[in-house]
């Protein structure tokens, strides 16, 4: 009896453990009641009961829908629960977006998704090579039929551009994100630059550094006379920071550096960026700064968080890179604490750059955008939502809470008003104060939650817009706190200086951007190995103990990448460029 009872107990336990093991292996499909039944077609499910409401576009009475989105920007602030803009869109469309943001390295995250087949409904991909991988894998669905049936606004806005989006198989797999409409006036804004702490600059009578020599003098002075500051600190242990540093240096040198790692030379060729002599000059300059103790040792290994912490503590005089990522947090804290200094960015030219600086590339390509995956349960509803987003008024309400009564009132991000007989939309004082005093303001309002699904209104004017950009808003001094106003006034800078600044340092990269190398090609393997090698070697060269060691090390580096096959990759990229020119 006892043996029988023991045996049955053993069997029960074993079965329970087995069940546990098997259940762990089961692929659980999330339940989602928002999608109704549909029928399968070549492009996906055709939709459900609310398809017949298409003619009204009054989505507020439709069933709730939730879509998961991967946003390819680590700096994106995910909206908090109840964020007003998110709720506003929900009230009108009954759509919610569940946004996932990568921790840092976007490429890795996307490749993990590719390998693990774990991806959300919608993916925002900036790299067309990775986008093509998703297409080749069959993980994303063609959008032609959906656009044809439910995207009248999309077709109206994009027009012939839709054909530019077609892949080799003739289908459209992505819609461009935050692009500038053809015919729109484009405003260019500087991002990559050189940032400095104004406390020292004020003490020295507001010198305006314009060249590498000016910076060198300043840093030497800081080292000698301001020991409480590190003259310059970088985050070279962080590859995204390193890439923004390269863009800044390229801008200073007047180098036309495209996103894919090649430089567009004056003789109309594309070369691997580190082979450009002008960039080598910038690294040579950084090496000199390092050898003379003007860049702190920790720069070589620290990450962006450590750098930001030092900047927030105002222990660093200067840095290089994207001004928003580098100095926004520190300046916000300084403002909160009432400190009499800020970080300010400057446009610098290298001593050998006799031409213009090239900090801001802009293109009319549509190589990046969002893709709809085969995990999307209700692609029709999603396309209808995107189509809704292609209406100007809806973009406005999905990016801000608008006061149409013309009042600059609390709780509104923008307001509509009359400016010289033209209806314009202006930033509210409430929004301006929010950005200046709260580093989590974007999340609390819900900024950026939807804009990547459509064309950009930011910084553009188009004849079709209901409300134009306010000319007064081009005066961005409204965004400056009192301290920033005081500092910028010392440099004679008005609030509209950025307009001409952007024009002066912008360059059109349309012809050379987005030349995609086949991921299965030998050349892709070559550049995949060379990129990490280059990153590590350049950082080591910046830390070279002598100028001679730098030069010989750089020569060795160039020899090594030749041995690794960089010329082969360059030949392919140039071939792609020639083919594009012929078309």
């Amino acid at each position: 009896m006892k043996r029988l009872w023991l045996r049955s107990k053993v069997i029960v336990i074993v079965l329970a453990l087995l069940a546990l093991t098997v259940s762990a292996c089961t692929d659980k499909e999330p339940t989602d009641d928002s999608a109704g039944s549909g029928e399968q077609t070549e492009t996906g499910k055709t939709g459900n009961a609310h398809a017949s409401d298409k003619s009204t576009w009054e989505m507020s009475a439709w069933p709730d829908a939730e879509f998961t989105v991967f946003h390819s920007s680590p700096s994106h602030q995910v909206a908090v629960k109840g964020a007003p803009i998110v709720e506003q869109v929900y009230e009108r469309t009954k759509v919610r977006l569940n946004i996932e943001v990568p921790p840092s390295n976007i490429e890795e995250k996307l490749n993990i998704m590719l390998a693990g087949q774990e991806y959300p409904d919608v993916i925002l991909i900036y790299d067309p090579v990775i986008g093509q991988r998703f297409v080749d894998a069959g993980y994303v669905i063609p959008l032609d039929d959906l656009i044809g049936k439910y995207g009248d606004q999309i077709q109206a806005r994009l027009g012939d551009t839709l054909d530019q989006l077609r892949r080799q198989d003739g289908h459209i797999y992505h819609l461009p994100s935050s692009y500038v409409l053809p015919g729109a006036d484009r405003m260019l804004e500087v991002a990559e630059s050189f940032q400095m702490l104004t406390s020292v600059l004020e003490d020295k009578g507001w010198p305006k550094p314009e060249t590498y020599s000016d910076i060198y003098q300043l840093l030497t002075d800081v080292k000698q006379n301001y020991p409480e500051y590190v003259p310059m600190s970088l985050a070279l242990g962080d590859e995204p920071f390193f890439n923004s540093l390269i863009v800044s240096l390229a801008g200073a040198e007047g180098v036309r550096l495209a996103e894919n790692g090649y430089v567009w030379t004056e003789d109309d060729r594309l070369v691997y960026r580190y082979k450009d002599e002008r960039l080598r000059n910038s690294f040579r300059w950084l090496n000199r700064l390092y050898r003379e103790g003007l860049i702190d040792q920790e720069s070589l290994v620290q990450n962006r968080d450590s750098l930001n912490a030092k900047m927030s503590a105002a222990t660093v005089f200067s840095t290089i890179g994207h001004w928003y990522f580098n100095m926004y947090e520190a300046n916000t804290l300084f403002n909160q604490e009432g400190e009499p200094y800020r970080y300010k960015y400057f446009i610098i030219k290298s001593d050998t750059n006799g031409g213009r600086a090239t900090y801001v590339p802009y293109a009319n390509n549509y190589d990046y955008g969002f893709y709809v995956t085969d995990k999307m349960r209700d692609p029709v509803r999603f396309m209808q939502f995107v189509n809704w987003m292609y209406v100007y008024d809806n973009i406005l309400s999905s990016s801000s809470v608008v006061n149409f009564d013309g009042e600059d009132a609390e709780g509104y991000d923008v307001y509509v008003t009359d400016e010289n007989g033209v209806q314009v939309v202006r930033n509210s004082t409430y929004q301006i104060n929010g950005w200046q005093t709260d580093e989590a303001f974007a999340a609390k309002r819900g900024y950026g939650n939807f804009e990547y699904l459509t064309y950009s209104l930011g910084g553009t004017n188009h004849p079709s817009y209901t409300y134009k950009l306010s000319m007064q808003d081009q005066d961005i001094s409204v965004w400056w706190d009192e301290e920033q106003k005081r500092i910028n006034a010392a440099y004679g800078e008005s609030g509209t200086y950025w307009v001409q600044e952007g024009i002066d340092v912008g360059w059109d990269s349309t012809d050379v951007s987005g030349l995609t190398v086949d991921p299965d090609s030998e050349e892709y393997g070559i550049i995949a190995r060379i990129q990490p090698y280059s990153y590590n070697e350049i950082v080591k060269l910046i830390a070279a103990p002598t100028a001679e060691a730098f030069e010989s090390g750089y020569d060795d580096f160039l020899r090594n990448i030749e041995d690794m096959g960089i010329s082969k990759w360059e030949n392919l990229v140039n071939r792609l460029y020639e083919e594009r020119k012929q078309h």
Partner: protein
Amino acid sequence: MLLLFTLPFAVWALVFCYAPIWGWLMAFQDYHPGKGIFGSKWVGFKHFSAFFGDRMFTVLLRNTMAISFLNIILGTVGALTLALLLNEVRSLVFKRTVQTVSYLPHFISYVVVANLFLTMLAPSGGLVNRILTGLGVVERPIFFFAEPHLFWALIASINLWKEVGWGAIIYIAAMSAVDPELYDAANVDGAGRLRKMWHVTLPCIRPTIVVLLILSASGLMDAGFDPSYLLGNPLVYEFSEVIDTYVYRMGLGRAMYSFATAVGLFRLVVALTILYIVNRIANRLGEEGIL
């Protein structure tokens, strides 16, 4: 009947350890996620050739084996030494306190450990440099994690600190099984503590040491992902990059899945070979191997 208890674990091993083995086929293909293994093109040893011809091949092999070797030697000697010393402690309270404190770091995430040591060893404001410069041992702070030739020693030391207590547990358990009469006999012969350690304790736990060493030997190609990934940086790349981090960067960073699988498979083959050789050596020396 009681063997049925092993069934769930056998299923688990089958599903999570053996079933994924078929993924090794990716190493012989140009794997496409969408096409799957049976739809991807077969390319034979193309990726192995690419790896053997890669300038990083010898670097990875050297770094992996060096770091693993240091970990094994320091780990074994350190754990053994700690176990021997604790075995001599009479006070139970003290012994258990030391044992507990020594194995607690094992449970700390390597991310925390890495940040701890990065902060402690930082050139500006780091505790170690402040002590060294304060005592006049060095004139200028040492940038520990920027010195390529210090990297292996640093990793081995950090791993020793983290794992010595945990590793000593098995040795302490083995020592507790030594017949006390042997110690009594040694006392009668006039043996002191060190003599007893050398002539009684160590010979009695020799089979345990051998088995653990053989198992460790199979990990000669496993230097660990966390230390190299978290503590490595561009300056020490030539000494910090190991096979695990390289597979991660290539496989997931660059989506070169087949290449990364080939590298991983190469590592496995070498590890199995080493395990077999070490096991044979142990057998030849009269010890019982594990194979």
